[in-house]
């Protein structure tokens, strides 16, 4: 999904750049609360890990190549704000040090793989993890969250390309293809995320941001008299509630939609396009804004493409919700038993 130069017109490149910069600025502020000098290396490691994970590439049928994103993993390990920074860093490094992903497309890339993927992933994660507690819940929530975040980013990509891509596509076709394939990639993403989170939870629970409330209280004793000193570890605050993140995500998203479509329709790219094309963009923007059904766009193999797109999204949601319900039931019972263990040791 690393967009190279020339994929999007100048208008979209610049406005997505502005959105990305604004998003990163917001996250820089937010990250100060998530990071201390101890966790800065964790952010670096997560970035390196995401970088490695993104090398696992899947050829995607009609779209671009797909690969794992890592945004959800980052959010769970270091917190959503820092996660966006990690993703931004990964993309900067890939763009500047490895020539991967266009420099003018950095804004688009950061917006999609950073802002959208992290916002969606973290939101889903918190929604699930909040309703159930315990290690199992955290791991399961990571799976679902990561799974959902991938098709979400893919659909955002399609939307953006539809608005300001440099090639004419039928949004429905591409959305269907992208959505469908990325659900599969999402399963891979979910597995990797869940395995990593559970590994880290097993040996260094203190490193999982999304599970900070889980660290069991320490009981220390002094050896001289074997006196028990019940002790609560000083840090280990409750993970912050969804609070600001959801509204912030919505603001970013609407900013994105608003700014991008404004630029695109007032189109300073007269340089580039023939009149018919402009008509296409206008039409596209009208559709995006008026929310007309996608079904207008004809059909593929007998299935109306809009319908195909909807099927992709529905399948994603269905899988997500099913897993969510399963997890909730599982962890409910798991939670009770873990309570008992706590009761014994305390």
């Amino acid at each position: 999904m690393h967009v190279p130069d020339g994929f999007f017109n100048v208008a979209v490149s610049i406005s997505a750049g502005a959105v990305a910069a604004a998003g990163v600025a917001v996250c820089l502020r937010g990250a100060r609360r998530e990071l201390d000098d101890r966790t800065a290396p964790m952010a670096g490691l997560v970035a390196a890990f995401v970088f490695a994970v993104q090398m696992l590439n899947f050829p995607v049928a009609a779209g671009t190549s797909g690969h794992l994103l890592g945004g959800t993993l980052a959010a769970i390990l270091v917190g959503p704000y820092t996660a966006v920074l990690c993703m931004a860093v990964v993309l900067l490094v890939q763009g500047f040090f490895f020539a991967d992903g266009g420099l003018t497309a950095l804004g688009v890339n950061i917006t999609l793989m950073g802002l959208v993927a992290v916002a969606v992933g973290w939101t889903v994660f918190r929604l699930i993890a909040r309703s159930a507690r315990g290690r199992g819940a955290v791991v399961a929530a990571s799976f679902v969250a990561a799974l959902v975040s991938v098709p979400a980013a893919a659909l955002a990509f399609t939307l953006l390309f539809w608005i300001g891509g440099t090639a004419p596509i039928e949004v429905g076709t591409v959305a269907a293809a992208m959505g469908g394939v990325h659900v599969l990639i999402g399963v891979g993403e979910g597995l990797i995320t869940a395995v990593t989170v559970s590994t880290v939870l097993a040996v260094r629970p203190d490193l999982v941001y999304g599970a900070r409330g889980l660290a069991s209280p320490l009981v220390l004793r002094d050896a001289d008299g074997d006196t028990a000193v019940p002790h609560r570890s000083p840090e280990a605050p409750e993970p912050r509630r969804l609070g600001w993140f959801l509204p912030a995500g919505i603001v970013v998203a609407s900013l994105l939609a608003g700014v991008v479509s404004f630029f695109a329709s007032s189109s300073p790219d007269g340089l580039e396009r023939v009149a018919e094309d402009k008509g296409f963009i206008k039409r596209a923007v009208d559709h995006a804004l008026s929310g007309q059904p996608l079904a207008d766009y004809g059909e593929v193999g007998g299935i109306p493409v809009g319908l195909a797109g909807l099927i992709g999204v529905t399948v994603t949601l269905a899988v997500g919700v099913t897993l969510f319900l399963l997890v909730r039931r599982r962890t409910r019972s798991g939670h009770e038993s873990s309570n008992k263990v706590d009761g014994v040791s305390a």
Partner: protein
Amino acid sequence: MGAGHHHRIYLAGDTVVHRLPPQCKLVAVAAFALVVVATPRAWVGAFGLYALLLAVTARVARVPFAFVLRRMVIEIPFVVFAVALPFIGFGERVSFLGTALSVEGLWAAWNILAKASLGVIASVLLAATTEPRAMLLGAQRLRLPSLLVQIMMFMLRYMDVIVDEMRRMRVARESRGFVARDIRHVPVIARSAGALFIRSYERGERVHLAMLSRGYTGVMPVIGELTASFRQWLVAGMLPGAALLALLGTWGLTS
């Protein structure tokens, strides 16, 4: 993405391009990419001039053409995408070898291929002539927020740590009679991959703590000053400047 994510992309050398301060090069390459993206796709001549400019830069920097070509594999997924465009695009169609291709799709494919390739080449040249560490210092000079620079620095270090730990683990495995030959060995690799994450983290963490214990406060002490002279900015500006001239020139010719 694809092959070749290694530090090896840097080619040590002592040319004018290598010696330019990193911040100048960063800005120059970004500006060049912007000019390329802003060029209308029909101005084929302008793209030729851009390619020529990059070729000249590569010569001056003594970066072999074969090296640049090898690095361009990163682009392959998009080549695939671009090739698909004439088939999935709509609008007017022309017939070519018996298949109907979308004219608009063909143009779009050309547009993406040309711009993406130029962008990739420019970035490859930048990375080949600038050490990663220098690039970080350049970013720092360009006022990239220090938190981002710090994360970036740790990330680069961790890539080394991970590679290093992977090497250690491979040697350790082999010296105890392990040879990864068939699919049955995947679980072993997977098990040790889980350990790799924690292990790399903890090694990096201990090193970080060692840095802290030697007075580190989050900013690398800059041992040599990194100021860029006006002349150096001028030299660096030659690439995007010439590209802009080419763009304006072509505009003049077409209108």
